[in-house]
């Protein structure tokens, strides 16, 4: 029982013997490289937690308690898979504004998430300065971003260049939507990354819409991944609603980067379940039928089914996880709402390290 495959089978067997497991597994296969049964269940939990956080954000917005919300519904599988494909505490994430699940799977807590929704003074990302979901947690290797589309892609490449110069075995994951790939800076970042072979993974979360503009008005090629050929590195497509498939692709790309074999462009095909943000109305550019049809692609029940088929979870465990996640989100909401807002004096801090403002 010393080979990795045997170890994974043993892990699977112990998981299926878990006292919570009452049904026999339908499928007996080895687990994906690097993912134990516990890790897979944790990934599922992060997806559920994200969904509930996102639902809470929209509810708070509709209640008039927060001015703005944006959710990642439809992207959860791709984001959680990417987070778990990285070496946490070592590898850097340069996310974009629709990466709630990536953040919650890479060390951000529900309380921290709710603090940014409420724009509280002690919001660790920006002290209530930025829109929600604009994370900045340097000690957990999550970079600060703005809302400017694709401006962070060059930053991620610059970070990777620094790690390469310093000979540190660090991989940088940069995420963006398919709309970002129309920006000149996206091209510049890809081009430089290819020339200098920097340790970076580009993850495009292609949800087919940039606010209201469909992919066919964004590019004349069917896949974002096709563009990688122009930069001299591989482009890979995966089903971004499939956790395990996305994990395998991103993990391989991460390990390639770590070995010095250069960048990879991964295109995860996802969908956007909600309007762009709380200020958008997708019924102005999508039909109710289109929106209804998307529900069949929901990655959360899909992953639940995958786990159940392999005997790694059952309905009781699913219900317990949802209850636990709901309690976490409720606690975070109550706690964050009670925290103090910034004061006028806070407007003037952190402009420069020192010296006058002008």
């Amino acid at each position: 029982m010393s080979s990795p495959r045997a170890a994974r089978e043993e892990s699977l067997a112990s998981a299926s013997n878990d006292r919570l497991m009452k049904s026999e597994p339908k499928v007996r296969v080895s687990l994906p490289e690097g993912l134990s049964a516990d890790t897979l269940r944790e990934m599922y939990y992060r997806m559920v937690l994200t969904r509930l956080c996102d639902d809470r954000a929209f509810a708070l917005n509709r209640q008039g308690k927060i001015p703005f919300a944006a959710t990642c519904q439809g992207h959860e599988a791709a984001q959680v898979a990417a987070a778990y494909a990285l070496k946490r505490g070592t590898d850097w994430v340069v996310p974009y504004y629709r990466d709630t699940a990536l953040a919650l799977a890479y060390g951000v807590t529900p309380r921290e998430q709710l603090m940014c929704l409420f724009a509280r003074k002690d919001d660790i990302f920006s002290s209530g300065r930025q829109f929600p979901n604009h994370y900045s947690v340097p000690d957990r290797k999550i970079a600060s971003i703005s809302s400017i589309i694709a401006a962070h892609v060059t930053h991620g490449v610059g970070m990777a260049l620094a790690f390469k110069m310093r000979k540190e075995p660090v991989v940088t994951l940069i995420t963006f939507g398919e709309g970002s790939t129309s920006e000149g800076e996206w091209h510049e970042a890809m081009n430089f990354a290819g020339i200098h072979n920097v340790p970076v993974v580009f993850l495009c979360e292609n949800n087919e819409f940039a606010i209201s503009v469909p992919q066919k008005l964004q590019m004349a090629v069917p896949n974002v991944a096709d563009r990688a050929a122009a930069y001299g590195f591989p482009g890979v497509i995966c089903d971004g609603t499939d956790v395990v498939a996305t994990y395998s692709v991103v993990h391989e790309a991460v390990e390639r980067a770590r070995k010095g074999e250069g960048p990879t462009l991964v295109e995860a095909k996802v969908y956007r379940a909600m309007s762009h943000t709380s200020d958008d109305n997708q019924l102005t550019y999508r039909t109710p039928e289109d929106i209804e049809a998307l529900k069949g692609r929901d990655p959360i029940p899909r992953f639940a089914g995958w786990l159940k088929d392999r005997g790694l979870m059952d309905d009781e465990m699913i219900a317990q996880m949802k209850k636990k996640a709901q309690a976490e989100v409720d606690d975070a909401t109550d706690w964050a709402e009670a925290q103090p807002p910034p004061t006028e004096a806070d407007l003037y801090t952190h402009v420069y390290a020192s010296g006058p403002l002008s």
Partner: protein
Amino acid sequence: MANKTVLEGVRDALHNEMARDSRVFIMGEDVGPRGNVFLITKGFLEEFGRDRVVDTPLAEASIVGIAVGAAMVGMRPVAEIQFADFIYPAYNQIVGEAAKIRYRSAGGNSCPLVIRTPYGGGVRGALSHSVSVEALFYHVPGLKVCVPSTPADAQGMLTSAIRDDDPVLFLEHKRTYRLIKGEVPDGDFTVPIGKADVARPGKDLSVITYGLMRHFAVEAAETLAKEGVEAEVIDLRSIRPMDRSAILESVRKTRRALIVHEDQKFGGIGAEVSAIIAEEAFFDLDAPIRRVCGPDVPAMGYAKEYEEAFMPNPDKIAAAMRDLVAI
């Protein structure tokens, strides 16, 4: 002390900081084997290697954006924009990103980055190699903007800029590169960012200026000295932060203020300097504030006649000084 040109001051600051601190690296177009189009980084590639002397693709937004990313994880990049006229594609990275990183992360991230670029006219650079860009950037909180004009200030302020914990736009007037020579201290020294310099003391009027115009203003002041008028020339050296107290102290003494810059007049640095004086020293003035600036046309043309008509020069400055003291 050593006698150097402005160009040599810039080169020595870059060289000494790269030798002193392994976090410092340079990136830009033609900085490698070519040694930069003005030969500022000649020999750097051989001395510091390809990792620290990065010839970039022709892509200004990413020259700055990649430097921003490296700065966010502890490097001290010096990004070069070959001519200030080419900086516009990088405007978002400088103004929208670098300048806001500390603020938007409430101090969690910082961006210790220097963007160097040659600017200004008087070299027959035509529409796209002569521009002054300072007014487009000095409005931006979170950014520092330096405009040194002497070899010592160029070297000392660039050293300060590289050691600064915030993004600095470092504007080098290209006409001064080889024209202006001066004494520079030996060894490791810095000139602080945010302190003006009294380029010439005087009592009858204040000329507030920076860049190449510092030298033209001093020349004009020497002319007026022969006519019995002693002008004080204040070289701002940095325009954000701006040394308000140096401006006000001089104007309160001389009671007359002339502002001189090569950049276009409307909305230029002179507008802010005028406002500072008007708000804080209005009752100390004996005459209205006057400005000698570039005209409000898009740029100076290639023809000699266009360039001469656009650029302030010692004669134009001296004439404005005479007018001001006559009031």
